């Protein structure tokens, strides 16, 4: 029953068989109008869906002009890499039209350095940049540390719920789509650059995800401030036909290249190897920056602490309590 509110005549015209009394009609009219006002009011209050709310930006700018410094955030200035290895086996008659490729051993190797920087200072010498997404999917994160951790945690829990719902192993493209739509919705303000890799029923996959939400599917990928140094190693050394150990060696070399040639990356090398049904998280696989001491034996503090001299200064005598003095001298 549509109420136009223009007159009883209109109402009668809509539903001939339905006759209502005047007071009921007026009540319904008022009720509808009330709902309309409510809806329009709530339409103003609710912020537009999706993305960030920038209402406080003007106030922040004003504060900044007055001299209030915004807090700096912790970044993982980084080198993160990923590589797909597929051992290929060709049959004899390798004509253009007839050769077969068998994948004997294939998977994805992810690598990352372990330095987290806060401006010019290293705030964490041994942080973990390879985050768990699913038993068969791992993700390396570069950019703002909080953003990478929050985004990977969020998508990891969404994947778990999806696994419960569907009863199947998660696919890498699922994680990819969830991450990219989240990052796109925030238009690049969530500064997380990710290298996502995993092995699912469709095979090994490696993707890069940029802070604005674009993605690439690649056989080898690098991200972070050390990405150029690592990419130079990959471009000169990668080939299709790699074994697992060769892949680990190339990934370690790429991360070391980032560690030694880029100031934002440093400390140790973390590696994660994912193959079908099996994963290996090699935390601190290489420690190319050990603590060194002048003496080759290193430094050790003696177990027994020797007492050289004792001097006791009783504190109570020094405190003078004035009785009846003024409570607070102004």
């Amino acid at each position, binding site marked *: 029953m549509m109420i136009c509110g223009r007159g009883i005549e209109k109402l009668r015209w809509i539903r001939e068989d339905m006759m209502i009394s005047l007071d009921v009609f007026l009540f319904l009219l008022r009720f509808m109008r009330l709902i309309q006002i409510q809806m329009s009011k709530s339409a103003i209050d609710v912020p537009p869906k999706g993305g960030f709310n920038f209402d406080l930006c003007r106030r922040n700018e004003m504060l900044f002009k007055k001299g209030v410094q915004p807090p700096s955030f912790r970044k993982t200035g980084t080198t993160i890499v990923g590589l*797909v290895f*597929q051992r290929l086996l060709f049959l004899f008659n390798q004509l253009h039209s007839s050769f077969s*490729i068998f994948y004997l051993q294939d998977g994805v190797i992810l690598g990352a350095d372990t330095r987290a920087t806060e401006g010019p200072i290293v705030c964490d010498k041994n942080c973990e940049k390879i985050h768990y997404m699913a038993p068969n999917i791992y993700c390396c994160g570069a950019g703002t540390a909080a953003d990478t951790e929050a985004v990977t945690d969020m998508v990891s829990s969404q994947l778990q719920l999806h696994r419960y719902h569907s009863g199947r192993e998660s*696919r*890498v*493209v699922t994680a*990819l*789509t969830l991450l990219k739509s989240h990052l796109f919705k925030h238009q690049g303000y969530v500064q997380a650059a990710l290298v996502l890799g995993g092995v699912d029923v*469709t*095979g090994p*996959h490696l993707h890069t995800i940029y802070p604005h939400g674009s*993605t*690439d*599917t*690649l*056989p080898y990928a690098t991200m972070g401030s050390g990405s*150029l*140094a690592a*990419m*130079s*190693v990959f*471009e*000169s050394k990668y080939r*299709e036909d790699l074994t697992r150990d060769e892949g680990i060696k190339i990934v370690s*070399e790429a991360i070391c*290249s980032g560690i*030694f*040639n880029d100031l934002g990356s440093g400390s140790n090398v973390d590696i994660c190897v994912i193959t079908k049904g099996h994963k290996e998280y090699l935390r601190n696989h290489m420690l190319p920056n050990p603590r060194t001491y002048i003496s080759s034996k290193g430094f050790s503090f003696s177990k027994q602490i020797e007492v050289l001299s004792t001097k006791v200064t009783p504190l109570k005598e020094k405190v003078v309590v004035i009785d009846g003095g003024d409570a607070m001298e102004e």
Partner: protein
Amino acid sequence: MSLIASTPANNSLLSSGMESERTLYPYVTGTSVIGIKYKDGILMAADMGGSYGSTLRYKSVERLKSIGKHSLLGASGEISDFQEILRYLDELILYDNMWDDGNSLGPKEVHNYLTRVMYNRRNKFNPLWNSLVLGGVKNGQKYLGMVSMIGVHFEDNHVATGFGNHLARPILRDEWHENMSFEDAVKLLEKCMRVLLYRDRSAINKLQIAKITEEEVTISQPYSLKTFWGYSAFQNPTKGAEGSW
């Protein structure tokens, strides 16, 4: 010898002397130059592209030139400033020859001269927008040095300018060693140039390699590198996930 580089905004109408005239941005630029020491001397590689902003305008710019008998100069950055530097060096070598005393300027001397020129121009806020690589051999001594646009200069076993700093230097640090043979050194340079070709936007596949030894200077003919694009992942990136990208 007054040097005036006019900016695009202040044209000849405003040359009252009140407006400061200085180089603000480069226009036609060359990309990276890589140089390494090897057993007999110095090897340098540079491609032949001159970019006008984001357009690849000139494809036969020779960015490696020999200076006198003992030196080789490679430049990246503004091409017109490179040509100006070549004019200065021409004059320098000419005056040196006119002494006719059997002595000639070696790479160390030329490097020092270039450093002074670049640093002086930067102090006048009118820089020559180049990163120069200077290499040479004199009396059996190999020398390889670099001067940047603000006058930073140093000498090293392997140098790279521009994007080569980020992409080629890691490779050179890992794989360079003393007394490389000519073939090994060329292979190393080609490896670096190939990575630059893949990953530098302003690089082109037409490069020259220049060699300087005690006896002679040779700058090769332009040639191109072989590239490989046949990875199976490039053929079908969305395999197993039809419809995604």
